[in-house]
């Protein structure tokens, strides 16, 4: 392969370069790790020894290996190089770096030099920005991976040749709160655009608006008992789908989505049926709970689509769940008074409710057939 005839060299060059596109291969690209604790005013910087060896003569004996002795001998050069490449600043100016610990640590690709600093910012201010330039003029793929701890909030950031400064102030980077609000919004949206959950809720709520006089009492019950019943139904539904949503989102229980969607559709039809013929009994909250478990798995499939390996899954989950609740309560607050008022008219009970039930039942049965076909 290494013959020197021009044509052969060409082939050799061809062969060397040819397969590069195909393999998905690698060690890992070069990363430094920077951990900033804004509350404690501390900074820790971990840089791969391999990468440091590009910048300074670490391998004194030239054996292509770095011993503990060789690394220790260059401690001063290492820390000076780091301190030149990293700048932390507060509102009034640069903060001083005072070394507290130095040694080695490990990451996924081997040993790193690790240094911890106390940050001294002017007038005792909190650090505001972190700038970093190490290795960018050697390796375009080098990155500074930053974790910012402020109180109990953790934020991740990445420094690159194009983005050499990161803001350390809370609220400026999308942290746990950002994820939470994003998923809160997604939860509301999903409930509102997910017709099956809304129909299910409607069918559950209808009986509460229809409550007839119980035997022995003088007339139809007032608003109070209806609200209590309603609260019971909604709470049961919420509890149930929260549990299964969590179980599914955390990967503890997994069910095939096609099945779940079919059962959800079936649940709507059965709930509609139950209003007319209470085969599952008059205690609607039980029905709400049982089917709520299934609906939770339905929410989870959407949440799974949105997160896909998201690190802050618990936060996303809490936000999404709460979003679903907010959407649900919003609908009830708007819708139930209307149903309550309508319930005063005979036509509501005689015609509108049966029509709604028949319509909802029909649609959901259609869904059952459609979804069952795709299993």
């Amino acid at each position, binding site marked *: *392969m290494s013959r020197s005839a021009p044509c052969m060299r*060409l*082939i*050799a060059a*061809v*062969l*060397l*370069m*040819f*397969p*590069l*596109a*195909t393999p*998905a*291969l*690698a*060690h*890992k*690209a070069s990363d430094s790790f920077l951990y900033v604790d804004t509350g404690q005013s501390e900074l*820790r910087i*971990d840089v*791969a020894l*391999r990468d440091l060896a590009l910048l300074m003569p670490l391998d004194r004996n030239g054996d292509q*290996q*770095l*011993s*503990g*002795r060789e*690394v220790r001998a260059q401690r001063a050069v290492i820390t000076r190089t780091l301190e030149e490449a990293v700048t932390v600043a507060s509102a009034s100016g640069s903060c001083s770096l005072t070394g507290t*610990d130095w040694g*080695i*640590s*490990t*990451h*996924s690709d*081997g*040993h790193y030099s690790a240094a911890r600093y106390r940050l001294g910012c002017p007038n005792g201010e909190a650090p505001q920005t972190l700038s970093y330039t190490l290795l960018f*003029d*050697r*390796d*375009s*793929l080098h990155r500074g*991976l930053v974790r910012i701890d402020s109180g109990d909030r*953790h934020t*991740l950031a990445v420094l690159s040749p194009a983005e050499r400064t990161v803001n350390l102030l809370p609220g400026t980077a999308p942290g746990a709160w950002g994820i939470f609000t994003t998923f809160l919004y997604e939860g509301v949206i999903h409930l509102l655009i997910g017709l099956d959950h809304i129909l299910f809720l409607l069918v559950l709520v209808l009986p509460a608006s229809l409550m007839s006089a119980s035997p022995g009492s003088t007339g139809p019950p007032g608003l109070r008992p209806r609200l209590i019943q309603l609260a019971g139904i909604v709470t049961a539904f919420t*509890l149930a789908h929260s549990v299964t949503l969590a179980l599914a989102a955390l990967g503890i*229980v*997994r069910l095939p*989505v096609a*099945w779940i969607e079919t059962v959800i559709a079936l649940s709507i039809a059965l709930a509609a049926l139950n209003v007319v013929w209470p085969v599952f009994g008059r205690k609607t909250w039980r029905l709400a709970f*049982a089917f709520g*478990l299934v609906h939770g798995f339905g929410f989870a*499939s959407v949440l*799974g*689509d949105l997160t*896909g390996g998201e*690190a802050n899954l*618990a936060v996303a*989950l*809490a936000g999404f769940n709460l979003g679903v609740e907010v959407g649900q309560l919003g609908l009830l607050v708007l819708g139930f008074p209307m149903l309550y008022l309508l319930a005063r008219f005979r036509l509501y009970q005689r015609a509108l409710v049966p029509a709604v039930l028949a319509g909802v039942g029909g649609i959901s049965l259609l869904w059952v057939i459609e979804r069952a076909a795709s299993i």
Partner: protein
Amino acid sequence: MTCCGNASLRRIHTGLSPALFFPALRGRAFSFWIGLVSLMAWPIPVAAAPAPIQTNFADEAILARLPDAVPRSTRLPPSAAAMAEEVQALIDQARGSGDPRFLGYAERRFQQWPDDAMTDRLRVLRATLAQSLHRFDEARQDLAEVLNRSADRRQRIQARLTLANLETVQGRYHQARAHCQRLSTEFPGLIAASCLAQVDARSGATRAAYDRLANQLAAAGNTGSAGYLWARGTLGDIAAQLGLASAEAHWQAVLASSPTDLYTRTQLADWYLRNGQVQSVMALTLGYEQVDALAVLRVIAMRRTGHPDQDGLANRIRERFEEAQWRGALLHKRDFARFQLAIEERPDIALRHAMANWETQREPLDTALALRAAIAADDQAAVRTLRNWLEQTGQSDARYPELP
């Protein structure tokens, strides 16, 4: 992530039937809240706390081994030829070791190099670099420029071959065939024949492509040439597609003379794994743990045999992927997806990444993984997308047993 963004991702069937009622749980609302709260507090690794700083490490400990071919300074090479030599060495190093740091060094060199001093050879090298960083359009642009403007025959051939390969990898067989045909007039021989055979095999004429290339190889006779090895590697690929046992011998022949060919090593390890030859996977991946693709194949083999280090290796791979995700640019989506599917048993996440990968790379292993993930995640839409493409291209492969 385009394709899987809108598709509804399905979850695996664990054998549990959809539960309408959990009688044992009924009426215990309070314990549910407790359960829910404890689930919310489930430890999710968010860039796990770093390893502690060790201050009293031993003087004698070997902490790192350094590679040879690193740029010694930031000073640019004195000539375009010297620059090309250096960049070529860096790309070769990346290819042979699977170490992307060398790609970063090479790219940095190109950033420093003045535009008006670019040569055809440098442009082809820059395209090769872009290709290995999965920036296919950039690569295409540089190669097209060389093909349109260059009078340098050698660089034109190199550009043509690189472009043919790029189009093949992306599953654009029509374009790839056109380049292979041009190549066979401009540079006839086993390399052009392999180029055409690969494209034919991927677009329906698999058996004919295999027989023709095997005949051309036999006729050529020169077993020591680069073209010979190239054809053997291609025959290995096509044999695997046909499910022929000869795949092993072809790939072994390539590996025997270039053991650092990580592409072939990965193909063969995958082949062994599919055929249940777990010990052969272990032997082939020994010492290649630092290469994502081979590490993932190795850990799957370990799991199948109940190897005592399976959790150790899985943890190392997991940490590597976590760092890559923190970085934000997951270069090896296929390996990540395979790890998620086979080891983490998260078909939904596996499918998302397998499909994102498949959007840019459509090698048989990419397609095979996407299919498996789609079926495991029970995503009919994704299965349809894959099946449609396979029907459209006429591609069949023994490694897609899920399809009739």
